[in-house]
């Protein structure tokens, strides 16, 4: 009786799966950084980067369609960039009038908006490939070994561990609510209650969950202290990286530098 929470990891035997998690993490971060640093409007470089990530998707055997479908999830966040179309100065494209308000879309604005959308979409795909081909515990170890603050990594790990617990708890609570959401045999009565009352109930549930998560964190901490936790997280040493992994890392970093150089020098 558990939440079948979507673990993004998809097991496989591809080259991408076999790469060292540390290398994958560094390359992904470098890739996202490169994407972010390319100035707006450099379409050829965008297409190169996009084809690069799609090639990796094909190589990783997790399926391009799968990655694309998951990347749709971030589309709503891109709406936040929408006002940029109208707020930047430049050659006017078209005007919209909303009541007494006139909005002028500019070419610079439109270019910037499309750049942002393309860039975030490409970056998100890289992150999806990383999490789909690397088991989360390996990713945590990788974060630790590339010197991401230990406390932060511990928090990620705990979050991952207890997300399922909290998910299960929410599921059971919702089942308990559904079990008591009944309809009376008196036909004149309408089941469901008012919207305000229902919002009140849902608010109470969210509050209860919060209090429980809070109390649980106290108990977890005590259990950690009881086993000798002193605020420092110690881990076993990680194995050495193979030559292939080094090659992938060096080659990718060179490639990203070249692409950046291309964008800035052109």
């Amino acid at each position: 009786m558990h939440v079948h929470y979507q673990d993004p990891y998809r097991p496989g035997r591809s080259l991408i799966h076999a790469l060292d998690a540390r290398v994958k993490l560094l390359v992904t971060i470098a890739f996202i950084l490169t994407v972010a640093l390319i100035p707006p409007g450099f379409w050829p470089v965008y297409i190169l980067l996009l084809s690069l990530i799609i090639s990796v998707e094909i190589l990783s055997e997790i399926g391009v369609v799968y990655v694309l479908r998951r990347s749709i999830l971030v589309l709503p966040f891109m709406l936040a960039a929408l006002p940029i179309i109208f707020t930047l100065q430049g050659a006017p494209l078209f005007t919209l009038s909303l009541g007494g308000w006139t909005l002028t879309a500019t070419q610079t604005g439109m270019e910037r908006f499309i750049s942002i959308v393309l860039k975030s979409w490409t970056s998100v795909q890289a992150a999806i490939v990383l999490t789909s081909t690397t088991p989360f515990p390996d990713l945590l170890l990788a974060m630790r070994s590339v010197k991401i603050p230990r406390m932060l990594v511990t928090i990620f790990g705990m979050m991952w561990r207890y997300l399922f617990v909290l998910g299960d708890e929410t599921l059971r609570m919702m089942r308990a609510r559904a079990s008591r959401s009944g309809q009376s045999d008196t036909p004149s009565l309408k089941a469901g209650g008012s919207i305000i009352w229902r919002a009140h109930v849902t608010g109470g549930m969210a509050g209860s969950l919060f209090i429980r998560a809070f109390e649980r964190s106290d108990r977890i901490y005590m259990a950690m202290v009881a086993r000798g936790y002193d605020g420092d997280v110690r881990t076993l040493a990680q194995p050495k990286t193979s030559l292939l992994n080094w090659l992938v890392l060096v080659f990718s970093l060179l490639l990203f530098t070249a692409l950046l150089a291309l964008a800035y020098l052109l």
Partner: protein
Amino acid sequence: MHHSIEIENLSFKYPDGHQALRDVCLHIEPCEKVALVGPNGAGKSTLILHLNGILTGEGDIRSAGLEVKKENLERIRARIGLVFQSPEDQLFSPTVLDDVAFGPMYQGLPEDEVQARVFEALEVVGMGEYGARVSHHLSLGEKKRIAIATVLSMTPEVLVLDEPTSGLDPRARRALINLLRELDLTMLVSSHDMLMVRELFPRVVIMDEGQIVADGQTRELLDDAALLEAHGLEMPDLQ
């Protein structure tokens, strides 16, 4: 008069492929008190969640005279009072009062009727003065009784309890057993508490690995040491 619970050939598989129920058949008459026993993972809780359509498997179920299907779910949920094992799940509102009132409020009953029902349900479980209390400050025994009150306020036809005595101290357990004895309702109670089963329930159903392996009189089944041992259970030892 309809059967309280009629289950015919129910099978259920969890999305991860685990076959939790296999071909379960069970009939419970009105006012019968039946215990459901079996080792952890036998499918007791899964079976219970089918009675009001929280889970739906293959097979036919009629609960309190209504076929368990989408159109009937709300009416079934008003007639079948399901109390979950952990009162933490059952009690999701800030105060005891809100929680006991949830069922009747959802049904759209008038306010004075809701109040009368809440008062009565809390009286029955002996927690009359607890209305304004905050649920998460109560003891486990108190929470378990309130959890029962949250379904009694719906005046259900059948009471279904999942391990009501687990984790209780002897006094709270005794109080709960007395409460269950006094309640004049059809009951299906899953439990590991064999002494309570022997004391309260004339009929017992034994489940193991998703199947009903025995169904009969408690006196006979709980004296069958070989049967109990084969399904990971122990004979209640009356000194």
